[in-house]
């Protein structure tokens, strides 16, 4: 009975595997909100569930694929982009979405991430950044903010962090964006544009790990974490307009890069067509 006068007829229940609910994430984990935004974007684009493939790696983010009512693949740690590369090349008819985390995508899977950006094969990578390895109990990740406590940085983190979006843009992803979970409507729009982009799209979602990271660092409960994440960002380029002059150190949100590069799968297939054509004439 989703006869909504307001926005649209999106009902999350149509897109999740209800027999797998409730999901296994901790109370207040932002990953659930990101999953809603993603499904909403899929709905907006009218992508049939039978044409949707969701590939994920290992970690809290990795479990999300199992909740989506689509063809879903929960692969190995750090490798979902590599699995998805094979899948997308074999099946250009599918919409391939990769769900990864900060550790999965930037640490163990860093090599696959930059090369996926470079190759520009048509797929969308949603990287959930909660600055921590949650599944294993709260170890430091490549995006853990400085001085934060984790089980492996008992005196505070002294390692510098990755700006994942800057990395993706530099490596050549044809669509790059970032959003916080609190801004779910903006996130939905961002994901929609990312999926619609013909090429490799990278979307970083700033998510919260309240139970482990938040608790260890006194960041408050989920609502507080979500609010402070939002207020520390620079909502640049969401409408691709102006940067916010204050908060000079915050990460930017919105669409951060968009380039028109040939999509790899199409380029490869064009080459093989040509080869086969030649053979036919010869």
């Amino acid at each position, binding site marked *: *009975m*989703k*006869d*909504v*006068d*307001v*926005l649209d007829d999106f*009902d*999350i*229940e149509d897109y*999740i595997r*209800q*027999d*797998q*609910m*409730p*999901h*296994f*994430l*901790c*109370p*207040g*984990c*932002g*990953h*659930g*909100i990101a999953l*809603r935004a993603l499904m909403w974007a899929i709905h907006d684009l009218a992508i049939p569930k039978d044409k949707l493939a969701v590939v994920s790696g290992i970690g*809290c983010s990795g479990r999300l694929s199992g909740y989506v009512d689509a063809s879903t693949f929960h692969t190995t740690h750090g490798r979902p982009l590599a699995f998805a590369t094979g899948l997308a090349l074999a099946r250009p008819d599918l919409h391939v979405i990769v769900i990864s985390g900060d550790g999965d995508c930037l640490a163990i899977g860093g090599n696959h991430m930059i090369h996926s950006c470079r190759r520009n094969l048509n797929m969308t990578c949603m990287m959930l950044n909660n600055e921590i390895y*949650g*599944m*294993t*109990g709260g170890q430091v990740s490549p995006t853990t903010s400085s001085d934060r406590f984790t089980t492996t940085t008992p005196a505070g983190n002294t390692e510098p962090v990755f700006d994942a979006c800057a990395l993706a843009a530099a490596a050549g992803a044809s669509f790059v964006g970032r959003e916080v*979970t*609190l801004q*779910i*409507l903006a996130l939905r729009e961002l994901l929609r544009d990312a999926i619609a982009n013909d090429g490799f799209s990278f979307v970083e979602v700033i998510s919260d790990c*309240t*139970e*482990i990271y938040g608790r260890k660092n006194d960041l408050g*409960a*989920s*609502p*507080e974490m*979500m609010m402070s994440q939002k207020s520390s960002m620079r909502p640049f380029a969401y409408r691709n307009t102006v940067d916010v002059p204050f908060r000079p150190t915050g990460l930017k949100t919105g669409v951060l890069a968009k380039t028109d590069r040939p999509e790899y799968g199409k380029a490869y297939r064009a080459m093989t067509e040509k080869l086969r054509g030649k053979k036919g004439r010869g």
Partner: protein
Amino acid sequence: MTNPVQVPTNVLIVGVGGQGVIMVSKVLATLCQNHGYAVKQSEVHGMAKRGGAVFSHVRFGPQVWSPTIPEGEADVLVALEWAEGLRWLSFLKPDTGTFIADCQRIVPPFACRNRGRGAEASYAPQTPEEIIQQVHAGYAMDATTMATNLGNLRAANTVLLGALSTALDFAVDDWLATIPQFVPPASIDINLAAFAAGREWALAGEKRVDANAEGPHVSYTEIRHAQVDTVVEIVEERCKGCDICVKLCPERCLRLNDSLVAELVLPDLCTGCHMCEWLCPDFAISVTNTPVPEPA
């Protein structure tokens, strides 16, 4: 209970990550050790994250060989979470075992697995009364609320420890002397009070079910505005009590009830804005706005 002088006594403690299963088993193991028993304790910390299933086997007696309790051999099963307790029920000695469980439900990741497609998405279907009837001695306590009333929700495990003390032959003073070694100094008093409360509750009968213990359900509130009808539905079994909807509802019309489940308490203020629905990470809320038909 079995006389621990001849054969090992088996206590199985189960729950989900973050509840303090390990603390309960450490207190027990230390107590046994101080009494000169051989003790074996083996545990599994599920996934090392909150919500993962955790269990601990404690066996003590004059001599203990195997560290794990065979199915059907536990003298006492202590469950810090209801569904985990049900999952392990077959480990209890059918004729003499004692089942002690918090009837609070934390939806653990694996309690909801292995259902067939299209199966009803219900959390453990039996009511606590039904379960307690099945066992020799059983206590379905609302330990979480008891601990919350004492000022610290995290002492729920100590409430259960109090109930456990009634099933084993150790002097109360020995329990009281051991507990402080395993809780933060600031919460020693609360934990001792929690122990006493749990013990007292369990001493009142062989089979007891807390009045608060009940099955899951969906709350359904309909709000009639001038032009639209708004329906706010909250699926209790999905809500994990994260507070997001409560704090981020622009009208502040939700709150968490005593069992830490979201509840629409000020329906008149609800504008049907969907914020709670969209931001609930557990898909527990749905808000539907239906235009009110023009009067004919």
